[in-house]
């Protein structure tokens, strides 16, 4: 039987094997016929290194990046979401300025409410200068739930919910002139830290610069974040009065340094400029001293003190701990730091603080243990002119490592290395922490500001990728007129020497800092959970129109329109009102299909809302212009998208 079987089966099996083998062979040849990689590389003048870089960054269609970068959108006032390593722009999140695609600030009431929270000095602010995004953290690691970002120009902070990547809240800091040292979060996002930059008078509305030292003050604010509501709790937040130095970046301690925050400063000279009057300009006056001050703040204790009666003063609606209270309670210490620093960065284990002085070639490493014992031993008795204790530099210094000209900002990898941007040299320096030693440098193009590494400021950095955020691009891109894009350069840090992989032009604002999170930590909604869902409430909204409840109701001069949208019609399709009526349009996208977004744009009334599946939005306007105004779906939702339209009929008065 076995013999029979084998005789009958051997031939077909062999034949099949031959056929299969040939088919495979022809596939592998056929797949590249006329498309030889080395030939294409030669034709396009690509080196082997270039081809390797392309292979390391290319993502085939439908494949996602392992990391997501949240970058400041600079003057656009928005946040950029970028996939790494492909460096594909995934989204621009509307934050401080209107963004029509997302229906942000162009008719949708709840988005306008968020922008209105950000009004300052009785002005609508139609720009922002976003600088430093901060991802929410749990135990010192990104948790992928929220993102915060500051507006330097108009001192305010925005809260973005990463369930739908939308801005939920803007808080303003009325006591600051501008902010720069924010946002940075404490290890469990207890507080969002924001430090002011250019000092203004604190306890009085107006004081001339000639009263700078008496009346002007620096400030750091600890915004209390309530994770459950996803909002900053204004009343539980507090500020601390600081000397009128100009404060810069901050960072929160972690591990052994948990409970403390570190804030850099420059212009400890308290220069007041006035170049036109024959005084040294700020740039010289603020750079006269060899040392400025790192501020060491016990935020945990400050939070307790802020809660005690008589320990704070109200200023412009904010609780502020006066400088005298901070000194008396031991909340604030200073230590010298080399000239005009930018970044203060706490090492992943929380044992050291790395300061980069822009006008000093070193990274200066402070030991938390030494800072702690200097504080505990009561200090040397030396103070600044405001009475804040100064911890002697030599008592708290661990080491200095020479990196190059203009060190700015430091990030960390998973192998005990630090990476510092070197502005004047246009390089990134890789150096070892233990023992401190410069390892190598790589050229970047050009004038690098911040660095962002994969989870590079957390307790557990990932290494792998570094993005150099270059201010100038000069000759890197196709010329597009005198205003050039900035340049995000992706660097592979696992290679030795480090390899430059990709240049991404940023043609929107001037981005500053970015944070890079593992993509699998983000769990955004694909579709809002339920029909009639309000992104503002992050819950189903009572009374939101759903299928079957469409109607128009008039209450006096107010006309409420309860409208639904689905492919490919609005219901109702006519809105008839009288000139002068107040129109309140409640509109729900009653679909639940992935990506079936509708828009609602109304001709000449400056209205465009984006209504994602399930979402409900409210639009309010006064029908002050008589006439006939088409409205239509502004997202290409379906084959009959152009037919998804209706008329707003405003009957002339009288």
């Amino acid at each position, binding site marked *: *039987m076995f013999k029979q079987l084998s005789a009958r089966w051997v031939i077909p099996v062999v034949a099949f094997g031959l056929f299969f083998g040939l088919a495979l062979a022809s596939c592998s040849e056929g797949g590249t016929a006329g498309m030889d990689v080395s030939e294409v590389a030669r034709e396009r003048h690509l080196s082997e290194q270039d081809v390797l870089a392309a292979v390391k960054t290319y993502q085939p269609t439908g494949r996602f990046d392992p990391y997501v970068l949240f970058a400041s959108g600079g003057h656009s006032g928005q946040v950029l979401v970028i996939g790494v390593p492909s460096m594909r722009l995934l989204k621009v999140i509307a934050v401080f300025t209107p963004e029509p695609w997302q229906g942000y600030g162009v008719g949708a009431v709840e988005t306008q409410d968020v922008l209105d929270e950000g009004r300052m000095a009785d002005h609508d602010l139609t720009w922002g200068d976003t600088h430093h995004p901060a991802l929410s953290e749990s135990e010192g690691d990104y948790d992928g739930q929220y993102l915060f970002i500051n507006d330097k120009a108009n001192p305010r902070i925005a809260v973005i919910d990463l369930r739908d990547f939308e801005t939920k809240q803007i808080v303003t800091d009325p006591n600051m002139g501008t902010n720069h040292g924010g946002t940075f979060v404490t290890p469990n996002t207890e507080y969002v830290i924001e430090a002011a930059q250019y000092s203004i008078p604190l306890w009085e509305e107006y004081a001339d610069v000639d009263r700078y030292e008496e009346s002007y003050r620096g400030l750091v604010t600890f915004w209390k974040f309530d994770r459950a509501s996803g909002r900053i709790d204004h009343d539980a937040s507090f500020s601390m009065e600081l000397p009128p130095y100009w404060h810069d970046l901050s960072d929160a301690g972690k591990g052994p340094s948990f409970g403390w925050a570190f804030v850099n400063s420059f212009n400890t000279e308290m220069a007041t400029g006035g170049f036109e009057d024959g005084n040294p300009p700020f740039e010289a006056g603020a750079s006269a001293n060899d040392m400025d001050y790192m501020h060491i703040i016990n935020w945990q204790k400050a939070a307790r003190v802020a809660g005690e009666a008589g320990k704070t003063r109200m200023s412009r609606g904010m609780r502020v701990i006066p400088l005298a209270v901070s000194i008396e309670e031991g909340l604030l210490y200073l230590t010298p730091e080399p000239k005009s620093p930018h970044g203060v960065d706490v090492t992943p284990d929380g044992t050291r603080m790395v300061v980069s002085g822009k006008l000093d070639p070193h990274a200066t490493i402070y030991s938390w243990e030494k800072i702690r014992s200097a504080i505990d031993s009561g200090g040397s008795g030396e103070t600044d002119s405001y009475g804040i204790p100064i911890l002697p530099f030599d008592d708290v210094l661990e080491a200095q490592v020479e990196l190059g000209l203009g060190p700015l900002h430091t990030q960390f990898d998973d192998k005990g290395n630090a990476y510092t941007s070197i502005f004047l040299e246009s390089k990134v320096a890789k150096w070892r922490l233990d023992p401190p030693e410069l390892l190598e440098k790589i050229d970047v193009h050009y004038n690098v500001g911040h660095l962002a590494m994969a989870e590079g400021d957390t307790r557990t950095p990932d290494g792998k990728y570094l993005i150099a955020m270059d201010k100038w691009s000069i000759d890197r891109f196709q010329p597009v007129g005198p205003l050039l894009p900035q340049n995000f350069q992706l660097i592979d840090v696992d290679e030795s020497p480090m390899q430059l992989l990709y240049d991404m032009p940023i043609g929107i604002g001037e981005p500053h800092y970015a944070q890079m999170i593992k993509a699998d930590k983000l769990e955004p909604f694909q579709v809002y959970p339920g029909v009639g869902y309000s992104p503002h409430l992050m819950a189903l909204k009572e009374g939101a129109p759903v299928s079957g409840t469409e109607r128009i109701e008039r209450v006096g001069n107010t006309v409420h329109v309860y409208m639904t949208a*689905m*492919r*490919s019609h609005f219901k109702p399709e006519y809105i008839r009102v009288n000139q002068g009526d107040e129109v309140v349009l409640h509109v729900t996208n009653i*679909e*639940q*299909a992935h990506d079936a977004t509708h828009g609602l744009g109304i001709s000449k009334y400056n209205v465009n809302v984006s209504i994602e599946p399930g979402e409900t939005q409210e639009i309010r306007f006064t029908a002050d212009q008589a006439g006939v105004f088409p409205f239509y779906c502004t997202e290409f939702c379906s*084959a*009959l998208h152009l*037919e998804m339209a209706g008329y707003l009929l405003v009957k002339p008065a009288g």
Partner: protein
Amino acid sequence: MGRVTSFFQGELSSVSRVMIVIATLTLLPSIFLPTWNITLHAPQYPEGLTLVIYPHTVGGQLDEVNLLNHYIGMREITPNEFPEFRLIPFFILRFFAFAVLAALVARIPIAAIGYLDFVMFGVVMLYTFQHWLTEFGTQLSPAAPIDLAPFVPRFIGTTHVAQFSVSSMPAAGGILMGIAGLMGPVVLIYEWRRRFGSRTPAPST
């Protein structure tokens, strides 16, 4: 003829009873499991859209399918309009009861009647399923935005409608019902052979 009569007066062997018990065990979960899936594939639905037909209702992405159907003027599918859904779970329970009884009393006639009942039910259900598919596919509103020629999806297999390919296939519950149904002929052949031996010649070596 004598053989058939005596066969139907016979008792079930314990092996057959075990097989009938297995049939009941596969039948029972099919009350709760999806019986049939109708899956629509199109480029913009990379994961497909599935209508899941249970013994008692239609589930899956019904809203989305109804939304798409309004373009071609197909009337809305609402689970309440199908009287079958109120009956099918009880029918399944009835077959279950027959099978349990057959296994307990070990009488071939009970097993045979129960099995006939089950097969007839299956045929009738597939017929009504096809009837509904025909009705929905051919009674399209002439006022619909997209004018489409009437179509008849097959109850099993793939039909192409506009940019969609519509696949209709038994799901877990349907497959379990099929397995239960296969037990009938298996028991029949087993019992026949046990009594009258095999007519098939032994394989040559």
